[in-house]
């Protein structure tokens, strides 16, 4: 398990990360979310042992993370980089060796990842000659070749077309199935919502929300209630709920924001008694809603 405990980091007078804590269980996928400059990359760098926290601790399976442990981790940074003149095969093998693979393992894993990522026809070409998407595949191979215990991916889907994004999703699923713990950041909330088990929202270097999606939703103060028909009788009943607020209407349906603690079965019973209700839907907040609210609260 990755345990990040009250870490903070300053660069000169600038505070990059302040009192951030979260835990990532083994084999799970963790989403680190936040706007640009929120401190996500600094948190990732500290987790990898590239930067040392000014305070707090980061532990992997009970051991404090340090520079020696980084060989067991994998990292795909936001800013991609490759040796342009080095051939694809040599590049992947080089990073395999840096992560401790040796002898036949290097060649075997290199060939395996080249095949897996559909890079066979480019294997003996310099990386600079590849398209951006294919370069990204090479970088994924460099980061995951050694079957890391913990793989940290900073914006892994940026620059990928839908087909390659799907391909990457499958690779991440496979890695997780083989026991790799994943920590990733992305601005594509819908992708994270599908992919991650737990989340941490960082704003201004501070931890705003963290937990599973269910826990984040549980902490959300309201729900959106979608009802049809939007007759005056129905609206009159909904208006009488404490804290309810009319949001709008579309296609004969009306939407109300109601307190999360409202007893929905009772509301439904009352509505059915009032009119011939054809639609009654309580909409859970999406990760995007939770994220935007967290940013608004911080502003």
């Amino acid at each position, binding site marked *: 398990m990755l345990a990040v405990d009250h870490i903070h980091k300053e660069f*000169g007078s600038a505070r990059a990360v302040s009192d951030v804590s979260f835990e990532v269980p083994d084999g799970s996928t963790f989403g680190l979310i936040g706007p640009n400059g929120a401190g996500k990359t600094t948190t990732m760098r500290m987790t990898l042992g590239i930067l040392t926290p000014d305070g707090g601790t980061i532990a992997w399976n009970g051991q404090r993370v340090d520079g020696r442990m980084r060989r067991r981790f994998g990292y795909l940074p936001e800013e991609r980089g490759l040796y342009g003149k080095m051939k694809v095969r040599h590049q992947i093998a080089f990073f395999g060796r840096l992560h*401790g693979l040796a002898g036949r393992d290097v060649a075997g894993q290199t060939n395996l990842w080249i095949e897996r990522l559909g890079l066979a026809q480019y294997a003996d070409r310099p990386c600079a000659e590849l398209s951006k998407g294919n370069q990204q595949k090479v970088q994924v191979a*460099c980061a995951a070749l050694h079957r890391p215990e913990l793989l940290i991916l900073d914006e892994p889907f940026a620059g990928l077309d839908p087909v390659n994004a799907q391909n990457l999703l499958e690779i991440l699923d496979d890695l997780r199935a083989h026991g790799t713990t994943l920590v990733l950041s992305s601005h594509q909330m819908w992708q994270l919502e599908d992919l991650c088990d737990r989340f941490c929202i960082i704003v201004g270097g501070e931890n705003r929300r963290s937990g599973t999606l269910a826990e984040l939703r549980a902490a959300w103060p309201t729900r959106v209630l979608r009802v049809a028909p939007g007759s005056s009788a129905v609206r009159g009943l909904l208006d009488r709920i404490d804290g309810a607020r009319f949001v709008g209407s579309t296609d004969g349906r009306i939407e109300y924001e109601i307190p999360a603690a409202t007893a929905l079965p009772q509301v439904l019973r009352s509505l059915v008694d009032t009119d011939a209700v054809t639609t009654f839907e309580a909409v859970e907040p999406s990760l995007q809603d939770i994220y935007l609210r967290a940013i608004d609260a911080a502003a």
Partner: protein
Amino acid sequence: MIGDFLTVFTAEFGRRIRSRPFQIGVLLGVLGILAFTKLPLLLANAFGEAGSSIVLAGDRELVERAKPLLERDFTVAAVESGARAPALADLKAHGAASWVTLQSDSHGGMRFDMYSSDSQSSTAKSIAGDLTSLNIAVATSLPRQRVHDLLRVPYTVHALSSRFSSSRDATKAWSVSYLLLLVLYMLILINGQLLMASVVEEKTSRIAELLVASISPIPLLYGKIAAAVAAGLIQMVCWILAGVLFGGGGSHAGAASDVPDFSGLLGGSVSALEAIAFVVLFVLGLLQYAMLFAAVGSLINRTEDLGSVSLPIVLPIIAGLLISMSALQMPDSNWAVTASFVPLLSPFVLFARIAMSQIPVWQVALGFAINFATVYFVAMLAGKLYRVGMLLYGRPPSLSQVWNVLRT
């Protein structure tokens, strides 16, 4: 740590050896040494042959006496009677470059007129030099051999501190040391700057973050530096082999006595200890400068800045070369002795002194100790800067920020 170092070393060394700048550098170096050692001789021979054939004419007695003197440096193609001015066709008819007419002058001596297809003042000067003893003999009626002997003041040089038994040996050693110092200068400069370019390339291509996420920056830095040193050693071997193969032209230069003599590379002028000292000082010097180049390179983000930030490191290299050149002439001067103990200058100056003087053992030991200590000190500073610099993007750090990093 060792595994990481070897992985980086192997990859970096392979990249360096396969890189176009390295291969071009080796080739240009070999061609440069070829030109440096052979060109003066070729030019001298070419000009010498063109101007070496002459026709003698004029006063018969003077011509008879002058002919053996001139035949030391020239081929006398023909002897003509009379003192007429020849035409160009006359020169061509004899295949000669010059027509020299000898005559008695009004003061009892002699004079000559030279008619040449190309007005080579050096040929006339050479003829005048060859005929000086004859001129005095004619004017004073002394035997020419007596005049010849009088013109040569006998002397012996008794060197009190030099390690060379003759001035010829000293000149030979100077030539070889001069060449080796140039090789040292070029190798340190080229390999240091190539390393710096490699570090900047890793930063600009953003692969640096991936590298330091995989291994500690220290084996990364030292692996790269070791690869630069190994590549430099290969270049050095190629260049010195070129010097050995092409050197030695001066010993049979014939007409070109001013041509540098590099035959000492084959033996005699460079002892085994000097060769070892050269290699060790090359490695120590390259280590010092390579680490500085790499550390400074890690602080910048644009290849356009390479020139400006490398200048402060290039300056001591140039200073080291210039001081070592003067140390070749005066290896025991206070200036040379002091400079041989100054970090960064020492690799150049200490070698010049070792090559040209019998310097005390304690000075050699102190010089090497200072160089080893400099490597250690620079390695620590470079490690600190590199560790921080590799993740530094955006505006380059100010001097005060660099100082803060070095103090931590």
